[in-house]
């Protein structure tokens, strides 16, 4: 393996880098070599106060000040991107409009009743004929994809028809993942 020349000043006589050693000391996971090697151990002695100081700093981790979340969300809500609306049909006079983002949220919620399916993106567009929906979905391992996607499609379609009174002319589901590794994080 070629050694990056810029690393030379950072290397111990055994070939290990000080940066790697420090990283392992901070994470508490010394390699077998680092625990046994005399060069690494001598260097570790030098780094010890620094490691202790960084650890202590980590223990007293600063947390975001109260009010930060509220202030951020106030601005966010004031300039919500999804300002488009879906127009519901009715006898009039007067009309009813629902924000696209609210419709998208309702559609996602309806799909949440289908086991093994989680909807991420959900874009709703109103055409002359009805709603056109494009969604991304994750389907858990063990659930047949065509069945799960169909069930999600049925749930979203019946919600649009029953609660909004609008036909769905197109409903695309992109299955983006099968078993999300960061689930539950």
């Amino acid at each position: 393996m070629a050694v990056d020349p810029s690393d030379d000043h950072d290397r111990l006589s055994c070939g290990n880098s000080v940066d790697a050693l420090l990283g392992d000391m901070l994470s508490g996971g010394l390699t077998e070599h680092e625990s046994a090697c005399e060069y690494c151990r001598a260097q570790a002695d030098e780094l010890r106060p620094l490691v202790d100081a960084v650890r202590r700093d980590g223990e007293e981790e600063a947390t975001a000040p109260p009010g930060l979340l509220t202030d951020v969300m106030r601005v966010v809500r004031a300039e919500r991107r999804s300002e488009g609306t879906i127009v519901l049909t009715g006898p009039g006079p007067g009309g009813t409009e629902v924000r696209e983002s609210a419709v998208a949220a309702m559609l996602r919620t309806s799909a949440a009743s289908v086991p093994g399916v989680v909807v991420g993106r959900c874009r709703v567009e109103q055409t002359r004929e009805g709603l056109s929906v494009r969604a991304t979905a994750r389907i858990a391992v063990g659930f047949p994809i065509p069945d799960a996607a169909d069930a999600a499609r049925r749930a979203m379609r019946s919600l649009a028809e029953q609660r909004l009174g609008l036909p769905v002319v197109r409903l695309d589901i992109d299955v983006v993942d099968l078993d999300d590794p960061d689930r539950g994080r």
Partner: protein
Amino acid sequence: MHWETALPESVLVERAQDGDDRAFETLVRRHQDTVYRIALRMLRDPADARDAAQEALITAWRRLPELADPRSFPAWLNRIVGRRALNVLRDRGPVETVEDGERLESREPGPVGETLAGDLRGALLHALSGLPPPQRICWVLREMEGLGYEEIAEIVDTTPTAVRGRIHRARTHLVEALEPWR
């Protein structure tokens, strides 16, 4: 909406990209401590750090549709706050913009330094404030927040090799400064 906390993060990111502010709120709740801490460690002033964190989070909301891979959201957010804090440091004036490698006059200890002086952690924070900002930033992002060389290089607009060099110099300075605790 606490049911959202059970969702995978990439789902929340996708929903927030669609303009779902509740999904974004969950993301802010989850990441605001890290965002604030990066700003605080770079700026060493709680009020400046709060402002930088707030601006970074709002910027993230505005630019979210540009994010191609929802999984990279945390790294992307760190980049935004890192850059924001760096701009604040640059705006603070010439004392903060000395060339890499020069030793800074120690700034007056800020509120963080004052309350903690005298112990090992206080000594670290004091020693950090004696570093030129480019070195301090690289050190903080690498050793305290665990970012990679490439990520740091993107934040500070330099090469990964230069980042390595700065971290090396910072570490040498800090090890010397903490020598009395050996």
